[in-house]
């Protein structure tokens, strides 16, 4: 049952990676990366249960927080249209 979940999560991660490689717009790539991060959290949690060592959940919690930083980066992207590095390039000649 845990092995089924791990296989399903790995299939979903590869499909999301395919969309991130194909994606016509940058928004498709961001969506695929967001989904990949969520699936990473799930994979770590289920893998901890599969090997009977649920202490891996601390790592999953850490990855959730990294996802939160990613969500804030997406919010910044939606506000300004870029991640802020183009301003830096303009400032430095």
């Amino acid at each position, binding site marked *: 049952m845990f092995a089924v979940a791990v296989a399903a999560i790995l299939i*979903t991660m590869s499909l999301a990676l395919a969309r991130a490689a194909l994606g016509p717009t940058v*928004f498709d790539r961001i*969506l695929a990366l967001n989904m990949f991060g969520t699936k990473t*959290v799930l994979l770590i949690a289920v893998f901890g*249960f599969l090997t009977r060592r649920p202490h891996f*959940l601390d790592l999953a*919690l850490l990855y959730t927080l990294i996802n939160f930083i990613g969500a804030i980066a997406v919010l910044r992207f939606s506000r300004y249209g870029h991640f802020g590095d183009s301003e830096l390039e303009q400032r430095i000649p």
Partner: protein
Amino acid sequence: MSLLVDVISGACIVAGSFFAVVGGIGILRLPDFYSRLHGGGITDTMGAGLILVGLMFHAGLTLVTVKLVMILFLLFVTSPTSCHALASSALAHGVRPLDPRRRDGH
């Protein structure tokens, strides 16, 4: 009692895996960006939620369940937020939804 909990946990995990794979197929196969957003959202809510609830049933009332509840809460707060921000950002930057009534589709 233990058998019942095991059955509930296994059903939740298998259903969550099913939703995750369906969302993955959706994100690859659906025609335009906004429908792909729906495919991504269903894995974040139904897939992640059902798998984590199944793990909670398997773990019982321990510290592990507390950590799982924290992971589920953070995922449920951040993932729809970033989905909504992504949709509004795409609309603001000129990605048009697919319209089947028009001949060119946009």
